[in-house]
């Protein structure tokens, strides 16, 4: 279960500031966000500055997540 933090528009779309979602990688996580909160939320998440354990992610496809990964979505 990755620990997720939402900021900006995503907070409104997801209706919460924090989350815990099971995902092996970022692609899975984005899919889960779409399933839980809709297409708009996934779109906003994709366009956000995504950090995993505090590091900027430039390639969504290649990023694996572990159980205690901390993922943040910030508005750019």
């Amino acid at each position, binding site marked *: 279960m990755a620990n997720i*933090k939402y*900021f*900006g528009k995503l907070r409104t779309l997801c209706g919460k500031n924090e989350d815990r979602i099971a995902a092996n990688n970022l692609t899975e996580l984005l899919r889960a966000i779409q399933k839980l909160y809709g297409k708009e939320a996934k779109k906003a998440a*994709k*366009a*956000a*500055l*995504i*950090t995993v354990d*505090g*590091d*900027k*992610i*430039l*390639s*969504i496809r290649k990023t694996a997540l572990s159980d205690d990964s901390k993922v*943040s979505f*910030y*508005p*750019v």
Partner: protein
Amino acid sequence: MGHPKLRLPKYAIIDLTSGTAADYPISEELYKKYIGGKSLGSRLLFDLAPPRVDPLSADNVLIVNTSPMTGTGAASTSRFNLSFKNVLTGGIATSNCGGTFGIMLKAAGYDGIILKGKAERPSYIEIVDGAISLKNAEHLWGMNTEEVQEQFEPHWGKLVIGPAGENLVRYASAVSGERVAGRCGAGAVMGSKKIKAIIAFGTKKPYIYDKEKFDQYNKKYIRLLRDHPVTGEALPKYGSAYFLKNTNASHSLPTKNFKMGKYEDAEMITGEALADTSLTRNSGCVSCPIRCERRVMVYGKEVKGPEYETVGLLGANILNNDLDLISELNYLADIYGMDSISLGGTLAFAMELKEKNLADFGLNFGSKEGIIETIDAIAHGVGTGKELGQGTKVLAEKYGGDDFAIHAKGLELASYEPRTSVGMGLGYATSNRGGCHLNGGYLALVETVMLSVDAQTPKGKAELTVLFQNMIEAISVAGYCLFTAIAVLPGPLLKLGPAHPVSRFVNKILIGVRFILGSLWKFMPKLLPFNMLYLLPHSESLKLVTGMPITSGKFLQIGERCFNIERLFNLREGLTAEDDDLSARLTKTPQDLDRPDTIVPLDKMLPKYYKVRGWDENGVPKKKKLRQLGIDIDINI
């Protein structure tokens, strides 16, 4: 024959020694070339300050001036400038401020004032509807910047110093309202001249050549700023501290005196955290639609909150994760009249001196103990504060630690760790006023904060640095807040996010077109004989306000000329290419020991930079370049 409607700026020269003032005519030629603000200020300083003058002597000259846009009501144009010989570097100093003083100075009938000499006793200058007088300020001496401003009418423009300026703290600031001309020691120069305050009031309207078109254009410009994801959304919501999670995520947030670039407690001090916890509301400078200012509660009252630089340097850089304490330190720096960037840099250096057993100022990384007392001691020039008020460079000369003394030319670095933003490193090293991100071209914006251009490659960084340095100079000369430069980066691109394939492609392109960018300057101003709202919105505004035939090309050349006159001043004052340098920590020790490329490869970037600038291998502008820019100075280096 002059331009039929060209209105020349009105300047006064005030001799503080004799207590007299006279008009100082600005010729049409000078105005057309240097326009106003830091450019005209630097040229006047070059002409009026005696070579190699001591910055804190009566002979140093202080120019406080406005730009054509100041006070016109156009978006983000309340700015004014201070030019003087830099207390920390011995070179050029320009310092920009967003308080109401500039607007009121213009309303009082002057576009700029030049101060020379030294008052016999603590004094203040009053400028009301064209009349200038020097008045006794003995009763104001010792007051902080808040108290002294309360002594004057609320609607008057004020520029004041606090105890730090009086006590010649080398990084003392000058303050207008709650806005600060922070860098380079402007407050110390005012203090050395025994000037506690300059106040201005008047009813004159600023000159606008074509008011109707100007107003229409400004409306479009405001729309552009409001529609932009950064100037319209992120900055108003989170303030500039929203940069912090970006720099931290790129390992470019100065942490523990720039030893690291990532702070484990960064999440506790981001702009987002501030918005969630202590923010009461946002606010801003006069006529600014961006409103990036934070309001927070300190000592039971609402005051201006910390900006990104302050959060970085009084937070991560000293391992302080307490946002409330950062707000408190920021407030103290403002009321004592001290630059929070240099203060944060100096405190971090003192902490590392202690850690390495080189000196003990009673300060430790990650400990709150003694910080507030130390800041008070610095401002009042007592105890350990006397030495800490000299800044990092002087401390290193006395106690050692040169390899981790984080400054350029003597000015402490801003809050971007350059080993993971090497273009910013080149900018710091070549910035004319020392370790300044803005005068350095602010490549951190495209390397870490907004875009993600390869931050480790030296390729293309010379070309991009010159472009951004010249552009930022021009925007400042016109009188715009430099945050408006962010809107030059296309909003739709930023909205895609850094991981989007198009964003990644653009990042590559910016490096790929370096050969074109590098040769632009040979063809200026003819290369861009037009103005475009979405390319460089500021140039059309400047044209409409002055009546001069300004194009984007001419606008950028104004910036280039400004950068070169600043460089010439530095060379005349004895600074050389050897001073285009950074501490060994940044140029020789990799931030990540497993990645040897995490250093600032200055040796690879500087020769190219000089070439793009049209300077020789010693960093001296070539005659051909000076001729192209119309700079009639031969300083025979």
